[in-house]
């Protein structure tokens, strides 16, 4: 017998006498009688259940369940955290904030569903409304293995007395397969092994971003939207500042000003966007050598992250490239 089964055996408990259960139930019923019979929610006439002939079956059920919750004085989000169709959601001051358990369920459902699939990430840093840096990342992932194709575009600042500078673009292809990181440079694959291999990736596994969604962000529903024929619920954070940078180092270190997430009717996140602002300054010396304080110009820059998931749950295969050269790869 193995240890686990021994432990299970050790937890065996004899059934109590039937009177034990009967007594407990009797105490409960007396307690219910002492606090009074609860009032049916629709009896008061204030909150009647609507007939929802145009709705799909799951939403009819969820709305019916919402009536239960209203009766108990608990947030609507506990039952149907994604939708606002009952009229209890919405962006107004009375919109219900998703309960912590609902947020946790959403995160868990998404992490489970995102065991395989694809994601497209667009990360843009802007200054004065113009893009400065832009990452476009196409990720395919299966478990911990992933392939990420990164296109990086840099927009040099315009010259005051010259032609506009052209943006420069570079691409890279990275893979993480069975604990090893691979990178292709000039047609040659390089492989990095060892415990720190995952740190060579440009971005972590996209599903890890979902884990940064916190109940304290105060998500509220803005209603249903049709995205490519699929009805998604749009959730928006009332308190996005708590979300940090979603674990994407160096891309959003400022103050989060907006966070939106779109969720399907299974509670799986299909898209998430985040905006943060940060202040940067450019200081120039007006004399050489600098004999007066430098003149500094500050701008409020913006970083945005837009992540769209696709083919969620579809089998994906990420294989190690052949002929990869072991050891640390050369830098660009």
């Amino acid at each position, binding site marked *: 017998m193995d240890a686990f089964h*021994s432990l299970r055996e050790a*937890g065996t408990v004899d059934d109590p006498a039937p009177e034990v259960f009967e007594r407990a139930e009797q105490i409960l019923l007396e307690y219910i009688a002492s606090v009074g019979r609860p009032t*049916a929610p*629709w009896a008061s006439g204030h909150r009647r259940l609507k007939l929802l002939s145009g709705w799909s079956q799951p939403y009819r059920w969820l709305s*019916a369940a919402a009536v239960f919750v209203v009766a108990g*004085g608990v947030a609507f989000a506990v039952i149907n955290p994604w939708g606002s169709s009952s009229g209890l959601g919405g962006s107004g001051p009375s919109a219900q904030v998703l309960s912590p358990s609902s947020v946790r369920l959403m995160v868990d459902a998404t*992490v489970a569903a995102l065991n395989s699939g694809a994601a497209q990430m667009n990360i843009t840093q802007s200054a004065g409304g113009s893009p400065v840096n832009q990452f476009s990342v196409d990720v395919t992932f299966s478990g911990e293995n992933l392939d990420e194709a990164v296109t990086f575009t840099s927009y040099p600042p315009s010259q005051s007395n010259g032609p506009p500078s052209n943006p420069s673009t570079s691409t890279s292809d990275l893979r993480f397969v069975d604990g090893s990181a691979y990178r292709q440079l000039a047609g040659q694959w390089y492989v990095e092994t060892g415990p720190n291999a995952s740190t060579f990736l440009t971005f972590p596994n996209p599903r890890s971003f979902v884990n940064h969604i916190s109940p304290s962000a105060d998500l509220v529903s803005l209603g249903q939207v049709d995205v490519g024929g699929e009805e998604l619920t749009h959730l928006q954070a009332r308190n996005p500042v708590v979300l940090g940078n979603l674990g994407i180092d160096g891309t959003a270190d400022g103050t989060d000003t907006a966070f939106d997430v779109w969720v399907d009717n299974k509670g799986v996140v299909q898209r998430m966007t985040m905006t943060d602002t940060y202040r940067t300054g450019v200081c120039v010396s007006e004399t050489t050598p600098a004999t007066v304080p430098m003149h500094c110009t500050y701008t409020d820059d913006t970083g945005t992250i837009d992540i769209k998931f696709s083919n969620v749950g579809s089998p994906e295969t990420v294989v190690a490239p052949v002929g990869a050269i072991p050891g640390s790869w050369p830098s660009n």
Partner: protein
Amino acid sequence: MVKEECNALVVSRLVQSEMSTWSEMDTDAQLIGWAIAGDSEAFAQLVRRHQGPVYAYLARRAGSPAAEDLLADVWMAAFRSRASFDARWDSARPWLFGIARNSLRKHWARLRKEDAVQDETSDPWPEVEDRLAASVIVGNLSAALNALSPEQREVLLLVAWEELTPTEIALVLGIPASTVRSHLHRARRSLLGDTTPLSAAETSHYCKET
């Protein structure tokens, strides 16, 4: 009956009548729905459905005499908080175990009331170990169980004794399911006598998800 049909039935019942017509075939979520709507007998049906496992959960941790006393406390607490039940769970068992866990905490706090400071997060393991000491089977496991953190031990016991899934344990303990899996993984390794550190890949995997 598929779930959608079942749900539609609940809706029609709600729309057509205030009278409760729950059946033994109803899911826990439906019974709690009826209880919220005012039918205490539906809640009693839920109690009968889960009284055995909830009693066993209490008895394994506090002993049979205390479990007999605590059982009614759990039902009353569950009734008071019935509106907090997440109706997307068909089974109420994890939710009831969470309530039972709170009752146990209060029970242990009462037992330690002579202490100046009541520790809400106190580890109940010494009491459980005392009870298990009488079991010959667990003898060799005692050291391994003692070596676990309280969180790892609780997760392991919820799997071994209550046969809950990590997702259900997450609901009982109020922690992410990924954290539960991490605790369970480490606890199982420890139980098997594997004291080697987690590999980097394992560490990375579990840390990313927690």
